[in-house]
């Protein structure tokens, strides 16, 4: 009772806010529950029951199209392969999140895992039929774009960040040019560039398919944003660290790899995860150049006349999937930040 009085009705403004929120919840939550759960149509081979008078949310659309939403147009009988690839990716994410596994072997696990995923998706050997990457799609494609994008952009971003702080003017100028040009334009313009301009850049007869072109644009984009995060980490390392390494006579690359980067990357992990979240959300933009990711599959499913008009349900579902991945990452980054800060405080007290 006392808690309620202090925390909900502390003064008259607070009381008004409390009442307004309660009124809003009373007005919105019961009808939403009625629509989304009680009156909802869960399973149905077509949309007829959804169009009946008094029918609620049409989740049957998701139930009916779930294979398409997960795997796009991947050949039906081979869909266990992208399914397994999704599970492998999630296992890699979870393993990388646990600090127990933070050791050099993790990088090897990633390289091996990504190679295995490539084998699964493409096939062509080991008794797997070849599947060209025009047919990849759905959630599998979204996760692949995000993962391969980060996997290539991250090492590149470290080079860019080091380049931006380099003493060599040409290296510095090129790094700044890349970072600022990319950060100054919207991602869509880079995707357009990859889908319509890149074919013009290449000699006659050389063709890169659409997926790889889009991936290339995403890597160029992500590297610029990640580079700024890494640079923030580099700037936070006290000058004394570099000077001590110099005094020991370590050459530039050994100083950077053994002294500076391990510390800089460690403190950049929380903001890096935030950038990963933004990048994961940005992969949804490939719908605009017509790649078959999660969002495109949902849009295509809605395009069928049988299921048109259920956009609210379909996009709520899309939002839920993206939210699950992003919220997990953001929670993780917050926890990690708290933990790293605590470790830092302890060592300082210890000294």
């Amino acid at each position: 009772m006392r808690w309620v009085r202090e925390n909900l009705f502390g003064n008259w403004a607070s009381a008004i806010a409390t009442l307004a929120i309660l009124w809003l919840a009373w007005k919105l939550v019961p009808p939403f529950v009625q629509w989304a759960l009680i009156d909802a149509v869960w399973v149905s081979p077509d949309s007829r029951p959804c169009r009946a008078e008094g029918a609620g949310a049409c989740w049957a659309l998701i139930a009916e199209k779930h294979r398409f939403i997960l795997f796009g147009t991947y050949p039906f009988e081979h869909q266990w392969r992208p399914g397994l690839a999704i599970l492998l990716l999630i296992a890699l994410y979870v393993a990388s999140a646990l600090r127990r596994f933070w050791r050099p072997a993790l990088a090897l696990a990633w390289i091996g895992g990504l190679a295995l995923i490539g084998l699964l998706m493409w096939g062509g050997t080991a008794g797997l039929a070849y599947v060209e990457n025009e047919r990849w799609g759905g959630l599998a494609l979204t996760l692949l774009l995000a993962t391969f994008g980060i996997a290539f952009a991250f090492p590149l971003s470290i080079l860019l960040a080091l380049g931006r702080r380099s003493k060599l003017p040409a290296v510095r100028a090129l790094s700044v040019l890349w970072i600022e040009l990319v950060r100054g334009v919207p991602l869509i313009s880079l995707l357009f560039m990859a889908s319509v301009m890149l074919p013009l850049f290449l000699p006659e007869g050389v063709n890169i398919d659409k997926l790889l072109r889009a991936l290339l644009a995403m890597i160029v984009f992500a590297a610029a944003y990640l580079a700024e995060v890494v640079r923030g980490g580099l700037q936070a390392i006290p000058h004394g660290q570099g000077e001590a390494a110099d005094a020991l006579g370590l050459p530039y690359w050994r100083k950077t790899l053994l002294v500076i980067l391990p510390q800089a990357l460690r403190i950049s992990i929380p903001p890096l995860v935030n950038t990963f979240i933004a990048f994961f959300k940005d992969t949804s933009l490939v719908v605009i150049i017509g790649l078959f990711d999660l969002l495109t599959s949902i849009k295509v499913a809605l395009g069928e006349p049988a299921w048109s008009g259920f956009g609210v349900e379909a996009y709520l579902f899309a939002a839920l999937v993206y939210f699950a991945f992003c919220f997990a990452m953001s929670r993780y980054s917050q926890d990690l930040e708290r933990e790293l800060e605590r470790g830092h405080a302890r060592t300082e007290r210890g000294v």
Partner: protein
Amino acid sequence: MRARAVAAQLALLAAVAFVVWYLASNTVANLEARRIASGFGFLAREAGFEIGESPFLSYGAADSYARAILIGLINTFRVALIGVVLATVLGTLLGLARLSRNWLLAKFAAGYVELLRNVPLLVQLFFLYAVITENLPGPRAALSPLPGVFLSNRGFAFPVLQPHAAHAWIGVALLAGMVLAWLVARWARRRQALTGQPFPAFAAGAALVLGLPLVVFLAAGAPLALARPSLQGFNFTGGAVLSPEFATLLGGLTLYTAAFIAEIVRAGVQAVDRGQFEAAYSLGLPRPRTMRLVILPQALRVIIPPLTSQYLNLTKNSSLAVAIGYPDLVSIANTTMNQTGQAIEGIAIIMAVYLSISLSISVLMNWYNKRIALKGARA
């Protein structure tokens, strides 16, 4: 050592130059092979497509590509400017709400921020667009939550002020009030520096800025006639009508960016040391003046740089308009590229516009940061 550094850099520059030359020569060969014209000559030609909305400047299919792109630019600025203002207001309220002592309010704001930040903007836009175009009734059965306001699947219609000659004079009075308030503030500062006597310059300034226009407004007989929208055939005329595309984009950008601004505002207020409050109170400063003279300047120093980058993000995100069919710069440039085949020029225009916006904002920001930087502190 020096010679090696110079050699390495020269090699790098040569490699970059070679790649650029190689790509450029391929492009020239490809353009010739495909018989695609180059250069910006197409801008003067007739565009031949209609644009859904062209406020401030008339446009028809017979106009040139240059004019079409200008319309796109105006549409981008229109949605970005209104979005920035609305997102700042909503974001500040949410950020302060998260710090509120009211548990329910703080949790509500936190939930809003978590929900909106973790779902891609594009999904939110598609969702809002589906809500408006699929779930709202047609114009004949439009929802009317307030008298004169109509929500339908053809857009939102609401009343606006009927233009009146006195409105211009109210604007003049507002300007005069601002100038006078600035003069009063300057005089008060000098007097306080010389004699130590304070003067309620803030209250006086507010009275001038608000009072002068009010006097003019009342003297002109309070012209508040409204132009109300009314149903004509299948759609609304009169008043202001927001198209579903504009309403979706504006709503989506505002709600999404507000979640990020809320976090910035919260961090900014929390960054001010508690000791600052205590020191100001022990000096005997009253609470409003503590906020205005001590807390706010310090919080703003933390808030403004990330806030500007959110404004830039909002402007860049407005390019998602192309996905829902709002005719912004990117969407019109895209149509132009598809019609003329001149992709390089189209993308160059898009990039040049966004780069000049970004660069001018960052020049402005650097100047501002230098102005508010702590005196004597190292950059």
